[in-house]
């Protein structure tokens, strides 16, 4: 592997704060402590969901293990009006956007295809077709421009849009088209790429010959690489990039350099394609451990702070489990209801026909009973 370029880092893996010439974390220790809580709870959501999949309660789960800092750091930099367009792995962003973790599970359990209201939460539906959401984000940002919600100087009005995607998505045409559109229209969008080094089994060198953030310059906007396991740095760079977008200065590409510590999904087996030694090395850069170390050594937080969060995460895990197993299967006749905003007579007839067909079984069952 060639030597990796420098990235923005404000908290070392050992938990030491470091200076950067261009970026600084503008929060206090209290905020770091609250972000630590987010990190722990997000990891717990993930652990519990993985367990639920193993026990047959979810069909599949896409773990964010290792990417907590990239997601919490970036999402905590967003203002309420900022809109985030996720992939299917942005459980930490969802958490920061106020999505109930139970609501995340319904898609993976197979009872619906997205249970939150994107327009109320400013958090898009999970998007499984790789990279498609980057165009949606760019179009939404163009709408923001047309609504005059950029560059007014009103912090509650000016709006940034964040498109989340991964290293694999950078090979998609849609992502490259989104870069072009955002650039030529100067759209208020931040492209937040979590480079977790793996697209299922394919390593990053199958997607690119240059560091991903450097691609931005070819499209005409700034790009930078941040330590994706450093929640402070991810917060600082996202805050700067979203501010830049809100001011009307256009898009930014952020490459959060991180590592997918788990499998691609619960259906995947990474032992077939990567060395366990890599995982061990990345464990030394764990996004939670360094914040724990900082808060213990430098912020003077005592053990009861951490114990409280552990207790809270136990309660959360219990609630997620209860909520998951309580999710009822939808009724099959419901599939006809939301195909269209204005249902067609054709579809209504299909629905009625299928309902009548189902009724014959109920009648027969009744007759036999």
């Amino acid at each position, binding site marked *: 592997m060639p030597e990796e370029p420098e990235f923005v880092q404000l908290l070392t893996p050992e938990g030491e704060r470091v200076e950067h010439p261009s970026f600084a974390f503008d929060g206090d220790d209290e905020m770091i402590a609250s972000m630590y809580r987010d990190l722990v709870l997000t990891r717990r959501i993930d652990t519990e969901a993985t367990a639920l999949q193993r026990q047959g309660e979810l069909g599949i789960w896409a773990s964010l293990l290792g990417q907590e800092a990239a997601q919490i750091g970036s999402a905590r930099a967003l203002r309420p009006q900022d809109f985030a367009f996720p992939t299917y792995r942005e459980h930490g962003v969802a958490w920061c956007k106020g999505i109930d973790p139970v609501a995340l599970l319904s898609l993976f359990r197979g009872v619906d295809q997205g249970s939150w209201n994107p327009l109320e939460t400013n958090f898009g539906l999970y998007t499984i077709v790789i990279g498609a959401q980057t*165009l949606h984000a*760019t179009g939404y940002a163009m*709408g923001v421009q047309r609504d005059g919600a950029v560059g007014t100087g009103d912090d509650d009005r000016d709006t940034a849009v964040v498109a989340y995607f991964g290293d694999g998505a950078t090979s998609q045409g849609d992502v490259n088209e989104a870069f*072009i559109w955002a650039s030529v229209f100067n759209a208020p969008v931040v492209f937040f790429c979590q480079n977790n080094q793996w697209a299922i089994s394919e390593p990053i060198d199958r997607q690119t010959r240059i560091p991903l953030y450097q691609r931005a310059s070819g499209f005409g906007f700034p790009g930078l690489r941040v330590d994706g396991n450093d929640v402070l740095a991810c917060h600082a760079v996202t805050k700067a990039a979203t501010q830049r977008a809100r001011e009307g200065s256009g898009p930014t590409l952020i490459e959060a350099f991180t590592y997918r510590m788990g499998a691609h999904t619960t259906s995947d087996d990474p032992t077939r394609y990567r060395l366990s030694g890599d995982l061990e090395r990345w464990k030394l850069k764990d996004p939670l451990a360094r914040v724990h170390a900082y808060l213990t050594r430098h912020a003077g937080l005592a053990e009861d702070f951490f114990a409280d969060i552990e207790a809270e995460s136990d309660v959360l895990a219990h609630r997620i489990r209860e909520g998951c197993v309580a999710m009822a299967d939808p009724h099959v006749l419901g599939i006809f209801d*939301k*195909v269209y905003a204005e249902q067609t007579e054709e579809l209504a007839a299909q629905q009625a026909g299928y309902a009548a067909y189902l009724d014959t079984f109920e009648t027969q069952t009744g007759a036999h009973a």
Partner: protein
Amino acid sequence: MSTITLAKALNDGLRASMEGDAKVVVMGEDVGKLGGVFRVTDGLQKDFGEDRVIDTPLSESGIVGTAVGLAMRDYRPVCEIQFDGFVYPAYDQIVSQVAKLHFRSGGRLPMPIVIRIPFGGGIGAVEHHSESPEAQFAHTAGLKVVACSNAADAYWMIQQAIACDDPVVFLEPKRRYWEKANLDREAAPAPLLSSKVVRDGTDVTVLAYGPMVKTCLESAIAAAEGGTSIEVIDLRTLSPLDLEPVYASVRRTGRVVVVHEAVVNLGIGAEVAARITEQCFYALEAPVLRVGGFDTPYPPSRIEEEYLPDLDRVLDAVDRSLAY
């Protein structure tokens, strides 16, 4: 009442929608200064500005993908795909995103997007400029697919499509863009998702949409000289289909020919034939016959007139139907 070309009728319809709703935006390649390669958007950018009539990058997936985001921000995008053969780069966004988002979101994300596609052949164009992809969209749940055949319908249908809260693939018969018809702007239009009997007849029912409607009307005139009375129905909406007027006609005539430029195999005609068989089985005097494209790519333009269904091929099918 005025006489107007189909292209100008679309232009007037777009203008009326844009005047009526500030959230309507037109986007596509060359739709602004140039007014579109067929001039359908002529003058709109001058009157409504660059924010509402957007000259886009040459990026069809980008046109449709950003329209999704605009729709989420409450806009009603009208996307122009410059030619039928260029829609495929946007196919993923249309099928996986535009068509499904209302369903996936449990109805929280309506997608009031119109995707205009000039379709069909007959203009002597090079490859990828003469295709008929309608069945691919009609096969996709969540989309509505309509095709106008004349200027009067075009004027109303484009406005109705824009007003519709569902995504509409709007097919424009490019070789009929310059044909004129009377347009009565005071008349109440037919509903968007309705078919229409455009010529009464008693012997054979001929179904068509888009550019083939005119061909079929000409066939009916020719057949009348030989004593055969053809009823012509313009399907207008391909998804959903509106076949009650068709069934009523078939129950009188007992004979049906479906005509389209698109390949016959698994085309709109196949679905229409199946439904007619289900609904009018005992009324049929002959199998439903189809006239359309062969299982070949669209041919080079010097022989396209031989490839395209024309008056003779329609009448040949009518004769075969009558011979049963």
